[in-house]
């Protein structure tokens, strides 16, 4: 089960829940699961947010694999100079 940590700005979708466990092998499946539990969250997560899986930050990660027992964080869209 992946452990998904939800930043403060996402908790308006979750009623304050900070951490959930999700059975998913891809980011897409993980987001679908979260959207079923917290309606509206999925659209927000797909709208350009970056994701960190076990500490590795990546963008455009919808089809990435989520390892068993991974730690998953959603992050704001990020760029640099």
């Amino acid at each position, binding site marked *: 089960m992946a452990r998904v940590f939800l*930043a403060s700005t996402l908790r308006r979708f979750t009623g304050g829940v900070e951490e959930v466990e999700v059975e998913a092998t891809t980011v897409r499946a993980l987001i679908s699961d979260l959207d079923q539990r917290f309606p509206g969250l999925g659209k927000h997560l797909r709208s350009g947010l970056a994701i960190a899986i076990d500490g590795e930050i990546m963008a*455009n990660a919808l089809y990435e694999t989520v390892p068993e027992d991974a730690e998953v964080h959603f992050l*704001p869209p990020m760029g640099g100079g």
Partner: protein
Amino acid sequence: MTTTIAPPTTTEANPGYKWVGTRPVRHDGLDKVTGRARFGADLTLPGMLIGAVLRSPHAHARILSIDTSPAKAIDGVKAVVTGADFPMLESEAGEGGEGEVDFRDLCHNIMARDKVLYEGHALAAVAATSRRAALAALAAIKVDYEVLPHVIDVEDAMMPDAPVLHEDMITAGMDPAPETPSNVAARYLHERGDAEQAFAGADVIVEREFTTKPVHQGYIEPHAVVADVAEDGRAMVWCSSQGHFMVRTYTAKLLGWEPSRIKVIPAEIGGGFGGKTTVYIEPVATLLSQKAGRPVKVVMTRDEVFRATGPTSGSKIRFKVGARRDGTIVAASGWLAYQAGAFKGSPVELGVMCMLAPYNVPNFHLEGFDVVNNMPKVAAYRAPGAPMAAFASETVLDEVARALDMDPLEFRMANAAEEGVKAVYGPRFRRIGYRETVEAIRDHPHYSEPLGSNQGRGVASGFWFNFGSVSSATVHINEDGGASVMTGSPDIGGSRASMALMAAEELGIDVYRITPIVADTESIGFTDMTGGSRVTHATGMAVIEACRTVVADLRARAAKIWDVDVDDVEWVEGRAQHVEGNHPPLTTEDLAETSARTGGPITASASLNARGAGVAFSTQVCDVEVDPETGAVEILRYTTAQDAGRAIHPSYVEGQMQGGVAQGIGWALNEEYLFDRQGVMENPGFLDYRIPVASDLPMIDTVIVEVPNPGHPYGVRGVGEVGIVPPMAAVANAIHDATGLRLEELPMSPVRVLAAISANGG
């Protein structure tokens, strides 16, 4: 001269590498020092017109009418455009320099429609046969304005009675959402644990309030473009930018065109630092060219660069830290408000996420506000958002260390984030080198050098994420055995050299037999911008992957020639060798020469979305001397240590480290946007907006720390941005060490330093 203590930079000291870690002269170096390199303004085409842009004299005004007919009547004027000539776009997010760009905002930024939102905001443009005619045409355009109240200061812009820039702006991130519009575009909150409760258990608490001003990236080359739209509607755009694919995408979007109608050719670039990660004049020149049926060149003046292109945000920050007597940080809280300029999108959330990232802090509450105001829309600037946040956090941490009577570096090491620690922004760190950068400064001779009277020493650390994203590369083996390496990454900081070095390492051929090329949008696969410290990591991975495919092909061809299994062929230092030595080796030249008979030209491409970018840390020490009579601060000595993962070309790593520090010192001591009471910028030129020059700075010593990034084949971490994060705090802490005064406002100019000395009875 630069003192590079680490890493070892000879091949002997880099076991396993022949080319990586060496210092060849950059392939584009000769052209750049002789003036042969061609930059944005250097292209001239037959029949080319000169474009110019009409800009608002008001900081905030409603456009009641624009009459361009007098301009069109001027001899030599061939085209005039206003906002009405561009499609009106709906709000839609795209990728941009600081994370996201809203194309509706971008289309209003390149050409105002109903309102001008800052002095310098474009509202019309002309193309004429001469610059004189173009300027006469601009002067002839009649604009009726209804001047509106304006607001510049970030806290003023947040007040309930502030002039509102956008009537539809409702603050995001508030629950419940506000019912009335304001200039606060968004609120961001990052928190962990219970900061308020933890502060109650602290032995030392320090809280301060900081102010920083907008500063410009200060690239020497102004924005410049030549656009040529042909009769069939296809456009060629020649410009300098940090991403020619970005220019294609944005220009097409803003004109309502298909991207494939536009070919963008990357000119050499004379500096960007994040400021060239968006478009300003490129869509305008393209539309003028289409209307005129002739090529159009637009080159910004320095005045226009300051008044109409992104500086980075000014800010107001309140920051508080609590620590136990043993030096352990127990809690932190911060309130940050950043100016976004005329449209939403300041880097405040990145500042929030970076400001405590070097440390393991169990309880924190950090709140950020993105605030629009009547100045140019901010653009990315090296580690966007992080430097002003670090100015606050690293100053307060210095004060906490002193209150605890601890060495400031030992205090930082006592709280240093390490592998496995949950970063302030959420995820657990993988292998990182923060502690090593602190140790490098602690152990450097600079840190123990005696100081004289009125002199002081300060340290500070900084963090930046670094990114991966999409890149493409193509490698051709030429018929003489040399190679061409094409990428889509504009070369801003020496990336041609690093691409060539990685290709030389993989192919086993001399680096000077490799020609690194920055290819146009029709010659290479899509490549994201040169920004986010991503190119050596991400584009480098594409080069490595393409080279490995080429090597596999070379081995297969040798196997074909020898009539053996390919597994019996290995590639060693640019030669195919039979594992049992049954055949004389075949060099790259041999295999290139016979390529027509073994399958045709030898070439391979790779495109990827690079994962595994490694985060960056820098720790720096600064010595200053403060003149108590004038308030002038002289930088006596400066040393910066940075984790580069693996320095592919150490000289260009050092160059990035030194460049970041130089810009940070300018930010600390001199640079700021000055506005008059009407919101007009008072210092839009390098005479009055003073960036540091060589005579202002000592040689900046560099210590390259190498803690390899496990996400890159050679261990590369991005190096372009983090160097600018610590300098403001390092300088401020040094001034405190010299004077006993804590300066909380940037820049720490002689006037402000002298005022602080006077207020302290000096």
